[in-house]
């Protein structure tokens, strides 16, 4: 088994404009997704909007600068994630396709296995 981090990207403005009825529907769909793939979901959360993000960058002199906003400004912002367990990429893709994404899509990233013994 391997772990994949599935990053959920979406248009924040579209999410905001959708309204409570759609948000509720989306919530229900996520609960259902969670139930269907319960055994293979190792974790997951929705994130607050990028308006709440704080970025910290290291400067050339080694000092750090704290700024308001996400690390990269993009139309489709990271809005949540699942950590899933799958035997291979095909299985991970099949699970990721079930994630409700009315405002965008997902990116599937294998979690690196770091061998600390060597």
């Amino acid at each position: 088994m391997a772990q994949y981090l599935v990053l959920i990207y979406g248009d924040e403005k579209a999410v905001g404009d959708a309204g409570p009825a759609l948000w509720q529907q989306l919530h229900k769909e996520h609960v259902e997704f969670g139930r269907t793939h319960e055994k293979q979901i190792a974790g997951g959360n929705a994130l607050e909007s990028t308006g709440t993000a704080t970025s910290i960058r290291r400067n050339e002199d080694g000092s750090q600068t704290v700024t308001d906003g996400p690390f990269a400004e993009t139309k489709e912002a990271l809005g949540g994630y699942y950590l899933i367990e799958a035997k291979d990429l095909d299985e991970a893709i099949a699970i990721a396709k079930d994630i409700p994404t009315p405002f965008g899509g997902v990116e599937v990233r294998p979690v690196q296995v770091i061998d600390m013994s060597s």
Partner: protein
Amino acid sequence: MTTTQASAEVAAAVAEAHRREWAFVLAATVRLTRDLDLAEECAQDAFAQALTSWAADGVPVRPGGWLTTVARRRALDALRHESVARRALPLLVGDDVEPAVDEVLGQHEDEIPDDRLRLVCTCCHPALAREAQVALTLRLICGLTTAEVARAFLVSEPTMAARITRAKKKIASARIPYRVPSAAELPSRVGAVLDVVHLLFTTGHTAPAGTDLVRRDLVERSIDLARMLRGLLPDDADVAGLLALVLLTDSRRATRVGSDGRLLLLEEQDRRQWDSAEIAEGVVLVGEALRRRPPGRFALQAAIAAVHAQSPTWADTDWRRIVTLYDALLEAWPSPVVALNRAVAVGFADGAAAGLAAVEALADEPQLAGYAYAAAARADFLRRLGRLDDARLSYEEALLLTENAAERELLQRRLAELRR
């Protein structure tokens, strides 16, 4: 027989085996090593050993079986001696238990499983970029060297090496499985493989730049690949369609360029020189591919090629049937380029005015804006309608859009005729 003759014969036998058996040998070895690089090394060693062993002992009855057995023994040796920590990438994942060493060593040549479908589905996995799929297919399925793959796509060798390394790393690290896709997935996965083979063929058939119109190496490799897939998936209508398409298109190869290097149009080609064996084989395959409803993209394109291939002269071409086939193709595979080809066929079925109208109806297609064939088709209809000034402008536009030397020569010839 002299020694030189004998060694030349052995070298030819090894080269032939390389072309026919490379994918089988590599695929069977990957199953053992679960490591593409190691499997490639072992397969290459087996072919190198064949040169000396076959010279001493004669060419084996089943070269593929001999090579696979040698490559797999090498792999087992390497696996026994290799320390796992040295391994740069994680092992490939599959869906079966690795066979025990004794089992592999005791396996008769006939029992070695054919893993070529796994290998080709891994190379053309949708999680890999198309250019990576193409590079891996040439390198791992056709056994080309990185230098040869680089030459085929007109990029530098370091660029191609980096592309292949990156793709292999993704296969291992993201755990793209070494497995035949499930029955539900198989059609779309085979579709991706067919797209890659078709892309190789068209790249070879009309080299995008340079002086050679046909890159024979790529064309031959893609026909070999289509034949291999046909052998692996004999009931697949799309595979039959693709093999038919490449055979029928290739059947005109000898007549596409004149003795002076000039590009010859279908109209000007000497049909007696078309390859009748390829046509016969292609036509049978078209019939088979068209039986599936609705027929697929490659089957319809092949059916159009078959109409031309079976028409004794240009004047006898059944343009009405070609337009009907293009109508079906537009449904199966809508694209502005197909619509343009349909417009050209309409021009032959219903006259230049109808053709020009059909081409001009596509004027707003952004995909055709930079497409030399669109301008060239418009130019031809204008010329046939006697609107020579407009035709000249369109030929000049087409010239700006193509870099292929043979195509440029044809357009310049047309322009010169208009200036006379």
